[in-house]
């Protein structure tokens, strides 16, 4: 399974509440959720992500509670995948269980925002302009979940095949 997209760079310790502050908005409308993405970062010129982006972040991405709305907002905004050095515990599990590809890898410092990169999930390879980065590839059962779009759809598909 291969995903491609343009990079969006973020720093360390981006908590789930920074990704999606849900205090004002309790609706689960994808368009509204996508509009609020990264509103918690606070910076006026925080990254505006577009459809087909791949987030590249530092340590502890998505820590703290409230990870589920953050994942839903990321998916609503059309984010294709996330590469970070490390993730919050709940964020990691829930992202995969909702079909969001999420990779633990440290990208080289020279990587710029807006560059086209390609992630080969089954091969464990990230290709970017000027280099390649390898990570532990996903096993089959994780690929099945991501391809199906989440744990629940993959179980449903498995059940109906039976």
């Amino acid at each position: 399974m291969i995903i491609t997209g343009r990079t969006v760079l973020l720093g360390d310790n981006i908590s789930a509440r920074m990704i999606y502050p849900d205090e004002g908005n309790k609706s689960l409308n994808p368009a509204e959720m996508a509009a609020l993405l990264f509103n918690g970062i606070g910076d006026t010129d925080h990254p505006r992500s577009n459809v087909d982006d791949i987030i590249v972040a530092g340590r502890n991405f998505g820590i703290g509670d409230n990870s589920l709305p953050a994942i839903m907002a990321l998916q609503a905004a059309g984010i294709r995948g996330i590469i970070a050095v490390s993730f919050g515990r709940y964020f990691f599990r829930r992202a995969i269980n909702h079909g969001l590809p999420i990779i633990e890898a440290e990208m080289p410092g020279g990587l710029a925002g807006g560059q086209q990169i390609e992630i080969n999930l089954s091969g464990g390879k990230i290709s970017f302009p000027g280099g390649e980065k390898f990570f532990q590839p996903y096993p089959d059962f994780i690929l099945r979940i991501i391809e199906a779009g989440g744990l629940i759809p993959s179980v449903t598909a498995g059940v109906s095949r039976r």
Partner: protein
Amino acid sequence: MPRRKIPTKAELIQLQKLYKTDEKIAERLGNISPQLVAYWRRKKNIPKHSFPKFSRQEIADLWERFGDDYRCGLELGISKAAFYNWRRKYGLKEKPAFLKLEQLELDLGGPSKSTGRKANYGHQTITQKILAETAGLERVEPGEMIEAEPDLALSNDNTEQVIRQFLSFGLSYVWNPNRIVIALDHNAPVSSLAAAEGHRAIREFVKRQNIKYFYDVREGISHQLIIERGHILPGQFGVGTDCHATSYGSIGAFATGIDTEEMAAIWATGKIWIKVPPTIKIIINGRMPIGVFAKDVILFVASKLKCDGAVYRAIEFNGNAVSQMSISERFTMTNMAMELNAKAAICSFDTITRRYLSGRTKMPYRPALPDKDALYDETYEFNIDQLVPQISCPDKVDNVETVADRAGLPVDQVVIGSCTNGRFDDLRIAADIIKDKKIHPEVRLLIFPGSREIYLEALKKGLIRALVEAGAMIMSPGCGCCTGLHQGILAAGERCLATTNQNSRGQMGSPEAEIYLVSPATAAASALRGVITDPTGYFK
């Protein structure tokens, strides 16, 4: 002729474990009759050794399914020779006629005879060993993702959501009704109409699915029941839809909390994916000073490691202080480890665990012990010789100070109980301090025994009477106000001293209420004085 020394209870249990029947024990001791051994046993309340019994149907089904003595024996937890004897007894001599799918898979690299813990692979922690065993792999490395079948799938009041998700798959039966445990504890007894409807739906589902291990609101807190009734055993892998499932590490099992959606997937497929966590080793040495308890020790550890100290990692508790702790104290430690964001927390198996489990389970188990050269992510070493009672202040568990620092603050409510500190020894500590005195008139003291068994024992030993006479309220065993649902909600500005495990804002009601986490001794001493009090002076 000198009189024969009568063996102690522990010796007799040990003998029974080795020699099983009274006749064999008598033979071993020499010169006495089996009837005398039986008499000693009855005097010491030791039940007769019961050999596992398997029905013909059970043996025939397994034989039909696997057609291999070793594999069938593994399923039942007996040796291949024992399985062979069983099937000969029932006259199953021929190999099954058809090659079954499981056998085919077996040949295609499934669990083979060489797997298992006997082989010495080296460098493995308890976590790695347990996860490798459940996934049917030779060994696993931290960071690796595996798919495993849990030995225990626990859910509590949120079973309602699991059921709804499970039914949406369109399946009629759950994967394995004997590995599913459902215990209603959060809302026990129910406090709202919506919760009552939820409980009714759960009870109907349980009946339809033939789930044997269903504990209704009367029984107590799920985590306590799991350990008490032997639903998880050393070396096993368990999951629960409550984050404090880490508590089962107290008997040497790997257990962790999961989402309700994942639980529904387990009910449907029997599988869950899990990332093998690296392990932190926490060595605790020294002797617990008077007035200091396991809760103080773990709060001290929390103050050093902080709340993000163990994110996505497993903890192994080690050291001579831990090896002297009872299962109840280890329970407190592994329960609170969740507040360090640990994936699991494990105390390794030893004679204390073995003694605790004897009589609680008939199933054989294979404990996992760490290799001597196991590789740990980090190692911490603490000495508790000089430890004083600790208190976790609002809003975070790792905001820990000594009780003496906060002494004198007035308290409105004191809660003793919950899965962290609701066991018999906790109640006894509290009762010993409170006995024959009266609690402060402006303090509400709520006691939540962990389970019906603990409640009954406390009743028999007179603890309940001592507590009620002093002015305490005994609540039904359950999670009660710890979850902020009912039974003792706090108003704005109130201060609560609790032996529970979480003190985040609004945990027990109003966000403006303050929750302090302490040991049962500190809680009891403070209830008497009406202000936060160091309990050391109450122990002579």
